[in-house]
């Protein structure tokens, strides 16, 4: 199923959450292709299924129907161990709530991932990439929210992932700090050529993407290509 230049491909993805008698259709037959090295921003109202999609693409969750392929691995067929392997080797995650390990320093939080990765960059270098070369030995409690988020990005990219998935990485930050974080994402995307998906509620951020997907009701409603990407530094909101 691998097509040249396509990193991720989804066909008829469906996801149904069942709680008792209530069924929630989070995804309804969604189709998607991500080209290698592409930066895609995912927009859409709350509850439209963005996080659900990202979780499936990142191997955190499995679809109820349809199939998802990473290169020539069919994600929807992998068992738990397979998914763990996939996340470990190919995916970097960044979340809205940074999810750092409080008992580890910034450097150690990054080492956490590099120690189990196949071809990582030195943790120090990853932190320098996000502009935190001077805060290596600080614990999360000693860092601001934006700094913590940048550590989370360093942690996500230190393994040189094929896929960088960010779910509202600036959601908890003010615009200035948010820009710093986006700059980090942008820089990694450019320097490593990582295929990147970024979920946001902020339409302004969509300007930094190659392609913008708008989700609604479990499917992709709208898609547009930016003729030219704007630099993260130029964004304000």
């Amino acid at each position, binding site marked *: 199923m691998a097509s040249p230049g396509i990193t991720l491909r989804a066909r008829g993805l469906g996801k149904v959450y069942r709680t008792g008698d209530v069924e929630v259709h989070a995804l309804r037959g969604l189709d998607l292709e991500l080209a290698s090295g592409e930066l895609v921003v995912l927009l859409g109202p709350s509850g439209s299924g963005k996080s659900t999609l990202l979780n499936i693409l990142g191997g955190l969750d499995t679809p109820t129907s349809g199939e998802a392929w990473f290169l020539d691995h069919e994600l929807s067929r992998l068992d738990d161990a397979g998914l763990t392997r996939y*996340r470990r080797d190919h995916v970097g995650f960044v979340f809205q709530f940074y999810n750092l*390990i409080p008992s*580890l320093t910034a450097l150690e939080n990054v080492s956490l991932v590099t120690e189990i990765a196949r071809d990582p960059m030195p943790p120090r270098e990853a932190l320098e990439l996000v502009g935190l070369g001077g805060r290596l030995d600080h614990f999360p409690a000693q860092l601001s929210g934006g700094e913590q988020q940048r550590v989370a990005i360093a942690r996500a990219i230190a393994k040189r992932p094929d896929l960088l998935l960010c779910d509202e990485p600036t959601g908890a930050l003010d615009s200035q700090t948010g820009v710093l974080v986006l700059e980090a994402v942008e820089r990694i995307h450019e320097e490593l050529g990582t295929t990147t998906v970024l979920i946001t509620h902020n339409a302004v951020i969509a300007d930094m993407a190659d392609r913008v997907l708008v989700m609604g009701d479990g499917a992709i409603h709208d898609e547009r290509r930016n003729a030219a990407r704007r630099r993260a530094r130029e964004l304000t909101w």
Partner: protein
Amino acid sequence: MVTGALHRKLYRDLWRLRGQVLAIALVMASGVGVLVMALTTVESLEETAVAYYERNRFADVFAQVERAPEHLAARLRQIPGVQAVETRVVRTAVLDVEGFEEPVIGQLVSLPEGEALRLNRLTLRQGRLPRAAAPDEVVLLEPFAKAHGLDPGDRLRAVVNGRWRELTVVGIALSPEFVYAIGPGSLMPDNRRYGIVWLGHEALQAAYDLDGAFNHASLSLLRGTDPAAVVDRVDRLLEGYGGTGAYARADQLSNWFLMSEIDQQRTLSTILPTIFLAVAAFLTHMVLGRLIAVERSEIGLLKAFGYRNRDIALHYVRFALGIGLVGVLLGWFLGYWLGLYNTRVYAEFYHFPFLLFRPGPQAFLAAGAISLGAALLGALGAVREAAALPPAEAMRPPAPPMFRRGTLGRSGIANRLDQPTRILLRQVIRWPGRSFITTAGIAMAVAVLVVAMQWLDAIEHMIDVYFLQAQQQDVSVGLAEARSGEIERDLARLPGVIATEPMRSVPAKLRHGWREEREALQGLPARQQLYRVYDAEGRALELPPDGLVISTMLAKLLDVRVGDAITVEVLEGRRPVFDVPVVATFETYIGSPAYIDIHALNRLMHEGSSVTGVHLRVDALERAALFRELKSLPRVSSVTVKQAAVQTFRDTMAETITIFVSFFIVFACALAFGVTYNAARIALSERGRELATLRVLGFTRAEISYILLGEVALLAFLALPLGCLAGYALSTLIVGAFETELYRVPLVVRASTYGWAMLIGGLATAVSAFLVRRRVDRLDLIAVLKTRE
């Protein structure tokens, strides 16, 4: 202002945390269970004994004499405070029960003919009492009869004053005097080799040439009379008739055993429940502390709505009480059941004709109050913290916990640790209090295991030292009264006898200052070959040519040191009184014996060579022939076979102790389980988000389990050896508390006991870790990431 909603929250919290609640409740229930068991056992044994004693008019004072004329009974009755007097003939004789090779020792006790027993009444279980003028009709003590399958109508033979008598069983009975029927020189009741036989008074008087005389008196006292005063008066009255010293009910052998058993139960009710309840209190503290930390913002919200601090405090107090209530209820059931079981075991062992197990509410209320108190105590700190949270503060999310580099710096070994190990270690260092509770809890479990199993070690050690090393004889022959040493040569000629060794036992009062003890002086050869004086370290002692070698227990009772002199007042024959120096003391587990060189003793008694017993080494092949001969020797009053004594000791111990040991193993496992489960669950609740993040980052289940359970494993690893140390200390404490004048349980812990304790403790820990591990495996990755904690 506690609303239905708060109540619902309480029930939901209890239900949501049911695993942890149950784990604490189990620990608490173990404590409550042991407490209720011990208290109800004490209560019902005491109640049963009191009722039995009362119904059967068990005497208050007893006196043994050589021969006293019947008219002395009237004088005894006149002693102030005496209510009734019963005079009897009591003798020891060798019995021959058909189909039983070994000689049986019988205690022959007379029954008044034609009139009812005034004191020490029998409870007839089968048949009837002997008829007047039917000298060969006897009543047997039930356990003895049962052990030999003897029923009314059956026959047995006895050597009564040197003559064989054919006896017919007419009745089977129980007596408050022989609740614990123990033969001469034995440590445990052996119903096959020792029995009580009641015969008509006149028949026994005639048989022992005691016409118009008695050799044993029982007295009952008026309520409120001091037995010690009566004992004194009786002693003075009987002095001229060969009295060996009157004694009160408290010193009556059967009663003494029963009471010390009850005392041991009391001891049990203090030490072990304390451990369990203390641990339960700590666990409550841990769980509640965690719950309140999680619910900070809810607490703030409630306060913002107008709930008072008191309402909040009460809410969490109720939570603690909820845990306590589950524990207490479980413990009550457990305790009732164990108490009933335990009392039944004792009742069977003691052969009470009836059993009063109707525990009053006191034991349950006391146990309940103490446990709820422990739960409240555990809740105190956490509840106070909740009440003190200012509403605004409470609604801010807690800052991530502060970690410092501290000891785990970037140099040396620390550098070689991988990140999961660092997380694990920092966690331990960050919460030293909690780590301590976990370690201490598991250590206590191991300690309880060591205590439980050290009993078995101690018993094996006692058997080894007391029976196997010290006693080299196979058979001990006791004589009805002191005889010339020639009898040793007569016995040496019997079939199968390889070696002999004399012994002379003299009943005496030993005095030092104002202290006084009744203890037989045991005369033995200076260098014993068969019946050896061994100290607790297993060294054989040589008896010096003059002077006493006494047990440290006796030295303590008399408050004497080596070099002091003891006044010995002999209670037989011409009743000489002499002073003897103490030349050495030795440690022994059983009794409080005093040894002296047999020649020195003979000299002090102004008698030629004289013996009251002979120890024999016997050729096993000729045992049967030897026993046949021994049964018919006129002057022999008892024959004790060592091997049987060891067997009885083992069996009796096995019956009672093994049950206890298994109880405690179960309890200890509950303890280890409860502690570990809570520690791991709390860690999981605190760090679920962290662990889920790690899973997202590509760590496997095994790897994150390592972080969570590695912490528990590390603490358990520390706890196991600590538990062994604590177990040793606790054993010292318990062994001290259980010490009686009769025997001291030695403090012996075999290496294998430590091994087993660690293995069992480790397994219980592992099982609960495994249960938590299953939860780790089911961690919902996405849910944890969606929300800030």
